[in-house]
C-alpha cells in the first residue's frame, strides 16, 4: 500500500537559520512535501516567504486554504492562522484561539497531520522559547510517525526541544550540524527490506 508522507519542520525563536540550512540540503528534488510551522511576527508577514525562497533557491509558498499538498513544494504556515491537513490531503486554515500563545501553533498542525499521515509523518522540532510542539510530537509518535528534535545543547534557544525530551522518548535527538544531512536522507528511497516500525525505516539513512 502506498504511504503518503509529509515532512513537518517546526520552530520558534532561533530556528530560522537551521530551517534554511535543512531546506537547502533537502534541495529541489526532495520527493516528499514539506510543511514549515514557524512562530512569526505578522508584521514581517510577506517578506519571510520571499527571504526563504531567495536563501534556499526552492519553491516556498505560503499555505492557501483547500490547497492540495504536493511534493516538490515547501509550504509555510501563514502568520496568524493555524494550519490543518484534511483527509483528502488538502490544507485548511483555522482562526480559532491561540494555542500555547501561538497561532500558528505547532501542536495543532502536528496533531492534524498525524491524524492524516500516521506513520508517513516525519516531525522535526527545533529551537524555541515556548512549550509548543511537545503535545504534538507525543501525538505524532502515538500515530506511528517519526519524531526528531534538535538537541537542546546545540539549539540557539533550548527550551522548546528540551520540553519535548522531558515529556517523551523522542525517536531521534540530533545536533544542529547533523540535521541537514539527516533530513536530506529521508528523501532517499527506502531500502527494500525495511523493518516495520517507523524508526527502523527512517534511521537507516
Amino acid at each position, binding site marked *: 500500500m502506498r504511504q503518503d508522507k509529509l515532512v513537518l519542520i517546526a520552530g520558534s525563536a532561533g530556528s530560522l537559520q537551521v530551517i534554511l540550512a535543512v531546506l537547502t540540503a533537502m534541495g529541489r528534488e526532495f520527493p516528499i512535501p514539506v510543511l514549515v510551522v514557524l512562530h512569526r511576527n505578522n508584521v514581517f508577514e510577506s517578506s519571510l516567504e520571499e527571504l526563504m525562497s531567495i536563501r534556499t533557491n526552492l519553491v516556498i509558498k505560503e499555505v492557501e486554504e483547500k490547497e492540495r499538498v504536493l511534493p516538490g513544494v515547501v509550504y509555510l504556515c501563514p502568520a496568524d492562522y493555524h494550519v*490543518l491537513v484534511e483527509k483528502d490531503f488538502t490544507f*485548511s486554515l483555522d482562526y*480559532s484561539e491561540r494555542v500555547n500563545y501561538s497561532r500558528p501553533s505547532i501542536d495543532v498542525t502536528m*496533531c492534524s497531520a498525524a*491524524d492524516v499521515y500516521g506513520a508517513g509523518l516525519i516531525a522535526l522540532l527545533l529551537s524555541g522559547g515556548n512549550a509548543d510542539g511537545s503535545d504534538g510530537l507525543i*501525538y505524532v509518535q502515538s500515530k506511528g510517525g517519526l519524531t526528531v528534535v534538535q538537541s537542546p545543547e546545540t539549539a540557539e534557544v533550548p527550551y522548546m526541544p528540551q520540553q519535548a525530551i522531558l515529556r517523551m522518548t523522542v525517536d531521534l535527538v540530533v545536533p544542529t550540524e547533523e540535521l541537514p544531512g539527516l533530513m536530506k536522507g529521508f528523501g532517499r528511497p527506502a531500502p527494500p527490506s525495511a523493518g516495520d516500525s517507523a524508526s527502523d525505516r527512517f534511521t537507516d539513512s
Partner: protein
Amino acid sequence: MEINPIQYEDLELLLNDLNTRYGYDFTEYSKASLLRRVQRLFTLDKFPSFAEFRYRLQHDSPYFRRFVEEITVNVTEMLRDPGFYKTLRTTILPILATYPFIRIWHAGCSTGEEVYSMAILLKEAGLLHKALLYGTDINPQVIEKARKGIFPVTQMQKYSENYIQSGGVQDFSIYYTANYHLAKFDSSLTGKMIFSTHNLVSDFSFNEFQLILCRNVLIYFERELQAKVFNLFDYSLENFGYLALGSKESLRFSPIADRYRQVGREKIWRKVYEAG
C-alpha cells in the same frame, strides 16, 4: 493533550445525527478543524465515551445549543487587518456615499466587533445616518453579545492601535464608555445595527446589499459549501456591490469569479455583471 478520543468516523456519525435530529447541517464543514473543536468540547465536558456524547447530543436539545456555541469559532477583533479598513475608508465608502441608502451585511459576525468597526468608519465618513448594518451568525449566544456592544476594556489599546493604522484621526475612546473592565460602545453606533441568527448553510437571502463582509468564515467550509455560499452572496448583492473576504480567502475558485473584479490588493471584489 489527550490522545484524540474522537475519530473522523465518529465525527461523521455525529454530524448525520445532528442533521436528522435538529436540521443543522455541518457535513460540509472542513473536517480537520471541526474534529478539533468537537474533541475539545468532548474533553471539556468530560464525557466518558463517544457513545455517551452522541446520546446526549441526540436527546438533550439544550446541550445541542451548547454544541453549536462551542464548535463554531468566535475569535474576532475590531479593525483587524487595518490595511483592509483603510481601503474601505479610501476606496469603498466614497462610492457607497453616492447611494441614498446603504445596506451592509456582516455574515458570520460572531460577537460583532467588525460591525462596530464598520459603524465607526461610516460615522467618520458622515454616512452612518443613512446606513443599516446587518450582523448575522449561526450562534445565538454571540448575537446576544453583539447586540449589547460591550467588550473587554483590555482590548481597547490594541483596537486603538488598529484604528490609528486604519487611518482614524480621532481619539478612539470617544466611541465607548469604560466601566471597570468593560467598554460599552456608543448607542449612536448600536442604533444602526440589526443582529439576527442566520445559518449560511440552510437559510436564504433576506435582503439586497451594497456591501457584504464575510471574513474568516469560509475557511471552515469545504469547497462545495463555499460555492453555495458564494451563490447566496451573489444573489444578495446589488450589481456594482462589494464582497469582502478574510485575508487568506479568495473568490478565485468560486463559480461566481467571472462576474467579479478584485479591488486593488485587498480581499475585496466588486460585482460587475456585463450587460446582456
